[in-house]
């Protein structure tokens, strides 16, 4: 019990309920009646009134701070005794005052009524708990109160529970018509809980009225369809979200491997560089601009790009440029670089994962269906990956640098002959791929762990995306990433995460056998090796 919050709740309720100066004396009388039915009726009437006095009285009743003296009801408050109906102080206590007897049935109704009053509490957690309790304890008489709460409830979770409680309360009614209406109302819902309730009603032992049973069946079908829809929507969404992450991880690789033909095993570590730059910017903001803490992610964007770009350029200048003709060796050398980067991260930031906070504007989500909530951070990451993709595409197809990169890819010697600075183009293109990986790493830091080993998790997946999409093809990478994401999420629902992952890898291995050039093959004739 939380008396304080209840008082506040009741004050809130007061604003809505018609003002009642004092408690109805006749109701109070019925509370002291010997008959339990009378008492319950009085409790319901009091809770429906929803005045502060009524709430206080019910609360006192449940806390056993009430004495019955004749037809008067006295409430103890600390040391003083007050008359429940008039509010006057009674002193000294009248002879023969004793606690009214409350049997279990009355107690249950009392709990239900108090819960019904608590659903007006401003504290979301209190409302949530109360609504949960109501589902189990509400009697049909409380339905109007619940509906009133429902009308002003904004929180989706509480709302769902309240809807449920409302229908359950009305389902307990003796009147088959009321039950029928409740069952039909439940058909509008789309939660697994409602499904359980309705399934229970199909049993003739639980529900005697055949009409209600038939209506339950109809409602059940409607709910199942809606649940399926919500399930499909949320799966497709989480698949796209996974796909966008894969795309961010693979986009840089699509440039370095797909276009330049460099096997960069340190690509995962470039993601890590981006993620750690996000962390560093966050720490810097915390120390210098605590007020703007929420916007560190935006400030981290250029930092992550620049850090990974620099790392990429250094790698290209020092190591990779000597290995363009030897792809297998560049694989080994870049693996070595990845080990160095991992160890460097361990030395600088420690071996443990670091905490990267989600800014507040990235938390929460939109509910497209009662059962399908799309979190903001995922939506933003999908949008972000689309944005990065667009910029990459523009850069490669609309700028001078992009033209140079494509020229060097197609014919290095010829490009050099017409004056393309091939060496510098290689460096810049590799840096660009690395910088995009850095942006991907920053996005990843918002939804997964940031640690020295994080890059290793994505390297196999990124290569799979590029290989599946077809080397040298941005469009292929996009389709492969989205397809793999959705495919993996649907499989996950059927087989569990690990088996799904294994199946996806097996699928790619088989797919490559059939189509070694990937989804989108470069057109033209090529001489083998």
């Amino acid at each position: 019990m939380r008396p304080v919050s209840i008082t506040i709740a009741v004050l809130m309720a007061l604003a809505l309920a018609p003002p009642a100066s004092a408690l109805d004396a006749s109701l109070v009388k019925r509370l002291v009646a010997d008959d339990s039915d009378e008492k319950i009726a009085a409790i319901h009437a009091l809770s429906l009134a929803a005045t502060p006095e009524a709430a206080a009285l019910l609360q006192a009743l449940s806390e056993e701070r009430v004495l019955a003296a004749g037809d008067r009801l006295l409430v103890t408050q600390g040391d003083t005794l007050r008359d429940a109906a008039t509010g006057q102080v009674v002193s000294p206590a009248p002879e023969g005052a004793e606690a009214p007897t409350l049997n279990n049935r009355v107690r249950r109704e009392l709990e239900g009524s108090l819960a019904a009053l608590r659903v007006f509490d401003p504290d979301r957690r209190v409302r949530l708990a109360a609504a949960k309790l109501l589902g189990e304890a509400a009697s049909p008489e409380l339905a109007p109160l619940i509906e009133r709460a429902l009308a002003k409830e904004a929180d989706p979770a509480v709302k769902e529970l309240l809807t449920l409680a409302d229908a359950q309360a009305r389902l307990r009614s003796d009147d088959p018509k009321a039950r029928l209406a409740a069952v039909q109302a439940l058909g509008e819902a789309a939660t697994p809980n409602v499904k359980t309730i309705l399934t229970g009603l199909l049993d003739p032992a639980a529900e005697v009225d055949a009409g209600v049973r038939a209506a339950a069946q109809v409602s059940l079908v409607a709910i199942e369809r809606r649940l399926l829809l919500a399930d499909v929507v949320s799966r497709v969404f989480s698949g796209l979200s996974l796909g966008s992450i894969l795309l961010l991880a693979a986009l840089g690789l699509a440039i370095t491997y797909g276009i330049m033909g460099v096997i960069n095993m340190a690509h995962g570590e470039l993601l890590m560089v981006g993620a750690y730059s996000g962390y560093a910017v966050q720490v810097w903001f915390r120390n210098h601009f605590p007020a703007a803490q929420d916007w560190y992610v935006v400030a981290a964007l250029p930092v992550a790009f620049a850090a990974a770009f620099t790392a990429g350029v250094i790698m290209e200048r020092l190591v990779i440029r000597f290995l363009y003709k030897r792809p297998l060796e560049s694989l080994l050398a870049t693996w070595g670089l990845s080990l160095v980067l991992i160890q460097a991260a361990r030395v600088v930031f420690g071996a443990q994962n670091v905490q990267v906070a989600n800014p507040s504007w990235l938390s929460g989500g939109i509910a497209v269906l009662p059962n399908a909530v799309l979190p903001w951070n995922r939506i933003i990451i999908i949008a972000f990956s689309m944005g990065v993709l667009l910029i990459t595409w523009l850069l490669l197809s609309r700028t001078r640098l992009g033209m140079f990169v494509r020229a060097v890819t197609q014919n290095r010697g010829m490009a050099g002959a017409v004056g393309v600075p091939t060496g510098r183009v290689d460096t810049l293109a590799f840096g660009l791929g690395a910088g995009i990986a850095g942006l991907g790493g920053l996005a990843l830091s918002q939804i997964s762990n940031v640690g020295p080993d994080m890059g290793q998790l994505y390297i196999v997946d990124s290569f799979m995306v590029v290989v599946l999409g077809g080397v040298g093809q941005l469009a292929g990478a996009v389709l492969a990433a989205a397809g793999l994401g959705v495919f993996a999420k649907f499989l996950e629902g059927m087989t569990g995460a690990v088996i799904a992952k294994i199946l996806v890898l097996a699928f790619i291995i088989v797919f490559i056998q059939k189509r070694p050039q990937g989804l989108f093959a470069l057109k033209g004739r090529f001489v083998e090796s």
Partner: protein
Amino acid sequence: MSGPRRSLLTPLFQATPRRGWIAFGVVATLAFVVVPLLHLVVPAGHVFHLSDYTVALAGKLACYALVAVALDLVWGQAGILSLGHGLFFALGGYCFGMYLMRAIGHDGVYQSDLPDFMVFLDWKRYPWYWTGTEHAAWALVLVVLVPGLLAFVFGWFAFRSRIRGVYLSIITQALTYAAMLLFFRNETGFGGNNGFTDFKRIFGFPVAAPGTRVALFAASVAVLLATLLLCRWLVTSRFGRVLRAIRDGESRVRCLGYDPLWYKLFAWTLSAVICGVAGALYVPQVGIINPSEMSTANSIEIAIWVAVGGRGTLVGAVIGALVVNLAKSWFTVAFPTLWLFFLGLIFVAVTLFLPDGLVGLATRLRARRRVPARASGSGAGATAAVPGAGTANGTGSGKEVVA
């Protein structure tokens, strides 16, 4: 110019210099005579006594060297860089590990018929694939069969689709990654995260006894030497030449009427089987096998052993495996934080500056010393300075051109 009675082994003997046979004999003597004596006969505490740790380390190194030779066969000769050899190694280990687990008998923590991890999962019976693994012989058959079959099927599909180069490397990496995920699951029936450990006996002998240890070490070296001979024979035969031709120009070989599929597939499957055997020898000596052996990092490390030693030389693979792993043993104790930096720089430095590895470096240095010697005309002095070098050149590379 082949003679009338030219045996299949002739190229092997012609191509292997006397120096090689001497080294072969020295290693065999060390493994089969010196180490057992020093470990079993020389009392503990004596200067020349070899500790349990040293013998176990030496046995481990022999297994690693075996894997490196296997990888060198496919990478150095056929140009197939596999990043999945850790998988075949681990599979061999798991196959033999099944026998070792069953040899624990009732001595486990729960004193059950089943291994402890199965008791923990509340399993009542062995899964079907454990059938017969209580017999060491069947387990040994599995050690060869499972990696071999997997490699054959995978290789058949991959080579038939003409998947080559880095594509193949990446796919083998995905293969071992998928297998690692599979073996991490408890439901797969191989002990999940913890894998197999706590072995008690092997072929009826206690697994930690000095005699068993020495026997396992000697067996590892014996297999290593036998494998080296076998691979050397293959490499010096016609088969080896076709393999190298495929490495250097697969399309041309195809145009000449060879089907590269079967050459590559044979080398690939043999390599996987060697890895499986190495894994089986490794597990009882190290006392544990778990899915981390299949991690992508492990498989790439095998490639660096070969690269450090020198690709395509077989002996180089052994040297590389020994050098890198000894460095690792020393570094991880002396400078634990620096090891990854060092390993990473080895990867970079070897690919950039030592494309032929240590063996290539040695050859280059020797060639540099010989050239001035020849120029000055004092042939006797040069031969004395580099004993056997002349023979190696005369019978080895010279023959290869002629035959």
